[in-house]
């Protein structure tokens, strides 16, 4: 009886696949079981795994194919969820459980509030840098956050154009501590991000953006850690930052009211610790024009 059933199943399979129309249907349902769902399909009412598959199909087709493969292998539900989370995380988007997907692309902010005294309970290693920017912990509540952040941004932009890798890393540290990188994940705390009304929704462009933001944030943290270690070994670096502050403040004053100004245009001195002489500078034509005798020279 079982043999006859198996034989009948085989015959049915052969008949189905010999008909072009049925073969088309079989091929589609075999590789793409969610073929009937369009991009804008309403996913709120879907079951979690269906939601995950729908999102993978539209944003990460290669992972969709891998997951369908696992389904064909008969992988159990729990392992399948772990597989999806692992694959999406490996792609660059941290996903702890698949139900997270319904709330948009998971983002992991790493930002800190430099003007919040509690920050320094967790990050006392930031204090010397804070001091280098002329901010005392006891005055932190009264600090002009915007002003300090502008100075920090100009200095980090200037450091970005230096060739010394250690100084570049100090630039990343400044970006992180003073939330001035321009990358939402580096500049925002969990609280900041949760206050944003619209989550980043799943589409190919946003997925690429989220991966880039996470990669950049990871790099920034790595470089910041390296910079903290370097500044600990080279405390003169902090003095150099402080010594450059008046030039930065002068530049800000001179460019008040302008729509945009950039740190690369300021002439700052970053001592070359290897050669023992002044390092690279970047020309600041705006500042040169400030000299009253510039046109007579």
């Amino acid at each position: 009886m079982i043999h006859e059933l198996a034989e009948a199943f085989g015959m049915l399979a052969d008949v189905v696949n010999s008909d072009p129309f049925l073969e088309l249907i079989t091929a589609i349902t075999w590789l793409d079981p969610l073929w009937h769902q369009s991009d804008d399909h309403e996913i709120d009412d879907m079951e979690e795994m269906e939601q995950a598959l729908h999102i993978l199909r539209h944003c990460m087709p290669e992972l969709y194919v891998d997951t369908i493969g696992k389904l064909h292998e008969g992988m159990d539900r729990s392992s399948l969820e772990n597989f999806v989370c692992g694959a999406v995380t490996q792609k660059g988007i941290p996903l702890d459980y698949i139900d997270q997907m319904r709330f948009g692309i998971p983002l992991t902010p790493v930002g800190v509030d430099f003007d919040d005294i509690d920050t320094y309970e967790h990050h006392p290693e930031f204090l010397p840098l804070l001091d280098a920017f002329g901010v005392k912990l006891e005055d932190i509540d009264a600090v002009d956050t915007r002003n300090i952040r502008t100075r920090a941004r100009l200095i980090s932009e200037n450091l970005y154009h230096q060739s010394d890798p250690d100084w570049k890393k100090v630039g990343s540290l400044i970006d992180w501590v003073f939330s001035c990188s321009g990358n939402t994940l580096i500049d925002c705390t969990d609280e900041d991000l949760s206050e944003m009304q619209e989550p980043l929704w799943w589409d190919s462009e946003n997925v690429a953006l989220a991966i880039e933001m996470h990669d950049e944030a990871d790099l920034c943290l790595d470089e910041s850690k390296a910079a903290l270690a370097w500044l600990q070994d080279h405390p003169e670096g902090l003095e150099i930052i402080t010594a450059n502050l008046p030039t930065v403040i002068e530049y800000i004053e001179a460019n008040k009211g302008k729509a945009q100004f950039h740190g690369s245009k300021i002439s700052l001195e970053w001592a070359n610790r290897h050669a023992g002489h002044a390092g690279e500078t970047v020309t600041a034509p705006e500042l040169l024009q400030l000299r009253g005798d510039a046109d007579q020279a």
Partner: protein
Amino acid sequence: MNAGISLEGLRDSIAQLQSIELKAMVLLREHRSPGQFTPRIGQNGITRESIIEAVGEIREYTDTCQSVANRLADLAPVSIKAFSVLEYGL
């Protein structure tokens, strides 16, 4: 709608359409054992790249079908005055 095509011309055009041949159908045909509905993914020498390509093609194909179906569903009704249906001779 009159595209200058006769009923016979329309019928012949449709009759000449080639059957669709998706990459997924080729994979199915080449890797399926006799008496089996579908081959197992990850076995039978089917590469991941070929499946990704096949799924991408299915997406395009099913999206096109869906779009055509939606357009057909939105067509305005056409009154046919010069055609008598004797069964409904009201």
